[in-house]
């Protein structure tokens, strides 16, 4: 529908903003709003004129379940929860809080760059981990194809500017989640771009992992087979 005359357009915009344009007339009007920016402008102006009337509505605190429902609906990675009974750092929700948020944001950005780097005909499903420090600043990213062709490799990009002293080693860990212990993926270095070969039998667990962590270990790697030093970066896995 085209609303031709300017007074009619303004009158409809006014009643739309007021709320008295209802039923099929309202639906018709909303359809024409979609491709008529000048009509949208008239509505915006009316919404602005009437907005002070919102002061008449008393604020009411909504129940907490509303926010929980909203969060459930907007969260990218959901459904995987860590048992709170476990005290180990890799099973603590607090440890991952923040990392999850950064991951979701940065993974989208990374996904865009990945698709430009890897021009495949069939879009490949990727696992992406954006790993950040305790201030939630991203320091490295790790990604790998869910179904690797050939030797399974993970691709690592180091973006942070942390330095490694000669008596240190940086060890990358796969964190399965829940009660399970981290599994070492090997030592990495400070190079901006690097690759690490992963045993093929580890791939199912990798694709189902909660996240990754990188710890600072003595030269040669952790003496115990589990992280012993400071966790520099960590991040949650996101499937894209």
């Amino acid at each position: 529908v085209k609303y031709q005359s300017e007074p009619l357009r303004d009158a409809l915009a006014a009643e739309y903003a007021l709320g008295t344009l209802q039923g099929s007339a309202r639906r018709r009007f909303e359809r024409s709003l979609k491709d008529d920016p000048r009509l949208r402008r008239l509505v915006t102006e009316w919404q602005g004129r009437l907005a002070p009337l919102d002061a008449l509505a008393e604020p009411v605190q909504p129940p907490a379940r509303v926010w929980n429902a909203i969060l459930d609906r907007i969260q990218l990675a959901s459904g995987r929860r860590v048992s709170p009974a476990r005290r180990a750092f890799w099973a603590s929700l607090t440890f991952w809080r923040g990392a999850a948020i950064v991951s979701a944001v940065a993974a989208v950005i990374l996904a865009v760059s990945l698709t430009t780097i890897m021009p495949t005909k069939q879009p490949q499903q990727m696992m992406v981990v954006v790993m950040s420090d305790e201030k939630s600043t991203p320091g490295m990213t790790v990604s790998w194809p869910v179904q690797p062709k050939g030797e399974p490799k993970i691709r690592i990009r180091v973006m942070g500017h942390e330095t490694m002293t000669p008596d240190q080693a940086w060890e990358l860990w796969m964190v399965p989640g829940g009660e399970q212990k981290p599994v070492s993926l090997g030592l990495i270095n400070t190079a901006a771009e690097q690759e690490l070969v992963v045993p093929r039998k580890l791939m199912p667990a990798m694709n189902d992992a909660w996240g990754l962590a990188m710890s600072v270990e003595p030269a040669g790697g952790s003496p115990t087979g589990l992280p012993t030093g400071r966790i520099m970066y960590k991040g949650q896995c996101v499937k894209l």
Partner: protein
Amino acid sequence: VADNDAITELMARCALRDQRAFAELYRQTSAKLYGVAIRILRRQDWAEEVLQESFVNIWNHIAEYSTSRSAPMTWMTAIVRNRALDWLRRPNLERGDEDYDLLVEALPDDAPGPETLLGNSRDARALADCLKQLSGNQRQTIMLAYAHGLSHGELASRLKEPLGTVKTWIRRGLDRLRGCMDGKVN
């Protein structure tokens, strides 16, 4: 009530998919927006649904805010109002009608004037001044319609006036309102 600059900044961060900014945006604005929804829907369960839908909508469309040329609260309130009005448009829906009669009573022709109710910002004073220029019937129908999402038909039966009369009050009232407010801005 949170100030507009802070909310605009939170919205910009939300556009970059910052969920913590979104949580803060919710913390600062949800009570106000829930109040708007409750006033229109007059049922808590419906208002909760509408608030939830609205915030998911806000999150999904927040990048479009920058092109809207609205104040941030106005933009978010418009989303809540539209959701609430859509909700009321569903067939076979019965709203309780106990409490808006009180508002009708509270706003007779010679009411003290909306300026005492709307606050002291420049926009609020302009609207209040202009509402005073309207006839009592025009002012009353416009304020009732906006506050409670009442249709022409509902207004007519509440006010016990013919439908055509109510429509004319609203149309002429809005027309005068625009003339008056444009005069104040320019």
